[in-house]
């Protein structure tokens, strides 16, 4: 469970990464909300509320969609009109106003991360650095293909410049932290081998750009054993490819269609906190009861942070009392082999990881199912079985045929897609027929 033996790099004291590593050393799971408001007053109040919560939490500044797209004029217009924005318009507020907003809020015991969703993040990185923030996230693939129309080559180029900017202020007492969002591609219906591979490859891209402090992501999928196997595969690959760097694993509570009922939403959140403990993930980005209905309030987020913390603590106790070591053993269904094959095929294309990623998508060696981006082949297809496991229907041109069990599904229809997309929601809300597998209620370390 403890990853310190896997990761050789040291986190710089007082940094985002040092906070996460410190909590992990104390046996605590760091929890993190998604949270972004239009004005500095609202944003500061939200961060102060998270800082005060009885949980080992880090703060989040989620940016709005206009800022994500570089459309600062629209963000400014909305701000001036008093129209609600779905996040914090960082660039419009600027570094000085953001620095003032964070004064007395942020420190070694309460670091913050900027979450932005941008395929062209240079202006965002410049502003956050000037505002004194050192942690952010994303990636040239994970924030390009699912969320933009930016050509992948342009995204890779801009991410390279942005990474170089991010690490330009690094020194003995400072190391900017960058998280790959690659383990979350489209949130659902992407088999875990590809999630693990893209997370690792983006982390490697950051490292080659000189970023010294990393985290690698994985989004909870419907099947518990598949999740445990996937996070273990991610750790194995990261240990091999990032031996001298400071890195940790960040888990995301299920990002697909979320339960509508209060008990369903809480059940899913709790299962992700248990999964984080079982897999030794150091940080968890939570979802809330409001997820299916709109943008969560601060109170929704605080509730989720407390619940995840309590469930994680309870899970640690259960594991300790049972003499277990956390994840235990799950069957090897080929996720590590699949991720290893993808990473190997991509890295063989070019010495430069960014160029290799671009060539891999061009040739379909990486192909994200259901991704409409013009640079994605969209020849692969995946399906969720009634047992809750993700399987490939078609692997397209990716070099992974036969490494994991194929789906028996035929072509996907609107109805079957909707069933797959809402499988977890219906399961958690108690609306699945009995023949279907229940939601991931973990085996309590008894494997």
């Amino acid at each position, binding site marked *: 469970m403890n990853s310190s033996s896997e990761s050789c790099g040291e986190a710089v004291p007082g940094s985002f990464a040092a906070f996460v590593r410190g909590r992990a050393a104390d046996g605590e799971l760091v929890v993190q909300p998604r949270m972004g408001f239009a004005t500095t007053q609202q944003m500061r109040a939200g961060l102060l509320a998270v800082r005060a919560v009885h949980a080992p939490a880090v703060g989040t500044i989620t940016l709005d969609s206009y800022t994500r797209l570089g459309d600062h004029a629209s963000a400014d217009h909305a701000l001036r009109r008093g129209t609600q924005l*779905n996040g914090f318009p960082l660039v419009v507020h600027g570094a000085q106003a953001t620095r003032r907003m964070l004064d007395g809020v942020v420190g070694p015991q309460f670091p913050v991360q900027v979450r932005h969703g941008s395929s062209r993040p240079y202006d965002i990185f410049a502003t956050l650095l000037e505002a004194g923030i050192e942690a952010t996230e994303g990636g040239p693939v994970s924030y390009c293909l*699912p969320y*933009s129309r930016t050509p992948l080559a342009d995204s890779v180029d801009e991410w390279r410049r942005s990474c170089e900017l991010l690490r330009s202020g690094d020194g003995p007492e400072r190391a900017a932290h960058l998280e790959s969002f690659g383990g979350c591609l489209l*949130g*659902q219906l992407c088999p875990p081998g590809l999630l693990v591979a893209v997370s690792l490859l983006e982390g490697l891209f950051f490292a080659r750009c000189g970023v010294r402090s990393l985290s690698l992501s994985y989004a909870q999928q419907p099947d518990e054993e598949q999740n445990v196997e996937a996070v273990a595969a991610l750790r194995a690959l990261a240990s091999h490819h990032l031996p001298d760097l400071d890195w940790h694993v960040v888990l995301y509570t299920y990002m697909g269609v979320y339960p509508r009922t209060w008990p369903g939403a809480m059940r899913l959140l709790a299962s992700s906190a248990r999964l984080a403990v079982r897999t030794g993930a150091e940080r968890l980005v939570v979802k809330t009861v409001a997820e299916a209905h709109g943008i969560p309030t601060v109170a929704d987020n605080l509730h989720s942070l407390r619940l995840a913390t309590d469930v994680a603590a309870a899970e640690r106790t259960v594991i300790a009392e049972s003499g277990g070591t956390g994840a235990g053993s799950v069957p090897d269904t080929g996720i590590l082999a699949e991720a290893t094959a993808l990473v190997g095929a991509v890295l063989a294309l070019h010495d430069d990881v960014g160029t290799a990623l671009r060539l891999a998508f061009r040739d379909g060696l990486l192909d994200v199912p259901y991704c409409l*981006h013009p640079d994605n082949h969209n020849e692969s297809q995946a399906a969720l079985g009634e047992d809750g496991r993700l399987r490939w229907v078609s692997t397209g041109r990716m070099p992974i045929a036969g490494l994991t069990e194929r789906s028996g599904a035929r072509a996907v229809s*609107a109805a079957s897609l909707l069933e797959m997309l809402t499988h977890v929601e219906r399961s958690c809300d108690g609306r699945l027929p009995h023949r279907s597998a229940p939601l991931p209620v973990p085996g309590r370390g008894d494997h």
Partner: protein
Amino acid sequence: MTTPPAAVPDRTPVRDGGRTPVWDPDRTTGPRVLLSSVSSDSHTWNLVFLQLLLEEHGCDVVNLGACVDDDLLLGECRRLGPDLLVISTVNGHGYLDGLRLIGRLRTDPLLAGLRVVIGGKLGVTPQTQDSHARELLEAGYDVVGGGGDDTGRLTRYLQGLRDLRVPALTGGASPP
């Protein structure tokens, strides 16, 4: 498996902007539907689902995907001459982006008469859904649908169009 860089020919297609989806006149039999999000919306599951649904209702669909800015969308409408434009949005800015978009469409001489449907989560909070829907209708949308899997209004509208055999839906009008 190691390939020297020089041996990798760069045949990266210029796909964005250069990719030119068109309706094949020999294959196009149903209503030709252009499917799109709005400029600030990065969500695509709604678009993947709607494409399948529209195809199952006999439509020929061109799916423009995420974050389609107004100029690209208007340009594709002029170029492709669809029978129907379907806008799907879930990120909470659909009301703002949708109002601006329909204003431009209805004042464009070529597109003022185009059938346009919008649906999804229109605002940041569900409380404003109904008032946003009314304003969008008044601004010029033909149909405003709800969020989630509420596609009843859309499919009834499609059925109505087919029942009427509106000429624009059956003809093979060339794009201007």
